């Protein structure tokens, strides 16, 4: 295990240097794993309370998000609107519980906020919304749009000569949208070297498994064909995720994509690889089991 050098709070601050582990930064993987566990607890609790929402794709995405927020994303929890922050664009906006759980664990949202998920007037809207939630950089909900938005952020950062980085999380299902590939083409053409994509490759979409609905094939190869640099990773192995995020941050030649092979519903046995829990909340008994498994 690597010795901790920076706390999460220190990394996510305006004063943090532009980090990557190759610079000698040290992170405690077990601390990140514990944060991901706490996020998973939040995800099942808030969807249970709301009696709706998307736990499956939140649980598949959460390790990737913790690896990014926990090691490199410069983001001031006391000033979420800091204009030179790195951006995290949650394109798969239905996995909003994952986003809210991160913001909760970082102290931007409180327990009441996340437990109000999907209720009238709540800062935690059904799909992530930049106008409702501090710390959310993109209003999602309609798939296929986040990469284009991230590209706009990346081009602006370059025009401003800012070193801020733009991370975009895509679902694998939404790569069926043509706009993703319009953006992939444009990002390479404009040499968006400050743009990083991470694809949550859980192989399940709303109705069923992707190979039943519309299998897209080798997503990494498709990004490569548009000129991107690509790596694949086990999306639930925190050490590997930390390494690949570090690698992405050290790349400065054009846009970078990480295809993270994940399991939908990861961490809750009855949700794992189960299309039913794409958009269904756990009931009381299911919550009890989930919390037991996550304890």
């Amino acid at each position, binding site marked *: 295990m690597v010795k901790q050098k920076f706390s999460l709070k220190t990394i996510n601050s305006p004063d943090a240097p532009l980090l990557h582990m190759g610079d000698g930064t040290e992170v405690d993987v077990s601390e990140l794993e514990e944060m991901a566990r706490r996020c998973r607890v939040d995800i099942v609790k808030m969807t249970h309370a709301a009696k709706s929402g998307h736990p499956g794709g939140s649980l598949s995405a959460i390790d990737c998000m913790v690896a990014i927020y926990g090691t490199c994303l410069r983001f001031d929890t006391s000033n979420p609107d800091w204009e030179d922050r790195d951006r995290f664009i949650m394109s798969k906006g239905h996995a909003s519980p994952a986003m809210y759980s991160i913001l909760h664990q970082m102290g931007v949202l409180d327990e009441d906020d996340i437990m109000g998920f999907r209720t009238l007037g709540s800062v935690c809207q059904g799909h992530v919304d930049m106008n409702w939630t501090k710390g959310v950089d993109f209003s999602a909900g309609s798939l296929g749009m986040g990469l284009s938005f991230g590209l706009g952020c*990346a081009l602006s950062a370059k025009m401003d000569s800012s070193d801020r980085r733009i991370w975009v999380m895509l679902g694998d299902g939404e790569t069926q949208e043509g706009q993703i590939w319009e953006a992939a083409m444009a990002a390479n053409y404009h040499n968006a070297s400050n743009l990083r994509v991470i694809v949550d490759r859980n192989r399940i979409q709303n109705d069923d498994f992707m190979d039943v609905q519309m299998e897209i094939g080798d997503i990494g190869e498709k990004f490569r064909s548009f000129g991107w640099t690509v790596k694949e990773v086990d999306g639930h192995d925190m050490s590997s995720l930390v390494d690949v995020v570090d690698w992405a941050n050290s790349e400065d030649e054009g846009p970078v994509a990480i295809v993270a092979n994940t399991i939908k519903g990861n961490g809750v046995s009855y949700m794992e690889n189960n299309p039913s829990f794409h958009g269904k909340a756990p009931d009381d008994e299911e919550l009890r089991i989930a919390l037991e498994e996550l304890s």
Partner: protein
Amino acid sequence: MSAPSSGGASRDGYGKGLLRIAEDPRVVVLEADLGKSTKSCHFRDEYPDRTVSLGIAEQNMMLVAAGMASSGKIPFASTFAIFTERAFEQVRNGIARPGLPVHICGSHGGIHTGTDGSSAQSIEDLAIYRTIPKMTVINPCDDISAEELTSQLLELNGPSYMRTARNKVPRMYEDGSKLRIGSGSVLREGGDLAIISCGVMVGVSISAAEALSSEGISCTVVDMHTIKPLDVELIAKLSESCGAFVTAEDHSVIGGLGGALSEWLSTNTSTPLEMVGVRDNFGQSGGSSELMELMGLNEAGICEAARRAISRK
């Protein structure tokens, strides 16, 4: 006002307007291969570092613009009016919902576009953008007003759609004319009827008003360049003073300027309204004036509508 001079296509005014506000470093221009047509090309020539070419990919362009707006830029994204519609949901969800100041310009709007045929003649753009909350919707009538209104978009802290026309029409304004987004411009005053028009139909409305005056019908003519928010104060005033309206637009009679006026009038007054516009029909190839005659978007169409409106007082 003085007699109209000739020679202004509103798309040229858009191009000049961009140059007028280019000094502001927040202004960026996004193109989808049609910069030479929309006239954003002049900005590109002068400011290539602040011009982003997105290729023939309008959906991506709208969200790239949104991302740039969220990063402090003021993006102006243009293509043909009809191709902005391809990205309608991107505009609705990605730009308008978060209220980002992205300014979309759709050129080649309306039947007036002519020989390209019906695929290029957007007759529904004003209607669809008008339905989106927070959107400002503008259709200037000539190059001078288009330049002025484009430059005013810099101060508009929200999304907008501006339709421009491909072809030249008589100028309605002189350089330095005062007009404001959200305020209809009264170009001619009369007490029997108000003709509320926008875009290329403003000049036709002035001609119709002159023809009607020889019949003893005295008309007010308004350039309602801003379709949303509608200048209802002016409409209320004219409802009192004129007591009858005609709308004239190179757009479907469903949901555009006529639709906007009828929504307000029918819920607030009993003042009669007649609409001149495209009667739920697609266009075809042909010269601008030939097509406008064919579709009834002409002086005779406005005069007939005026007589009907007055007879319903």
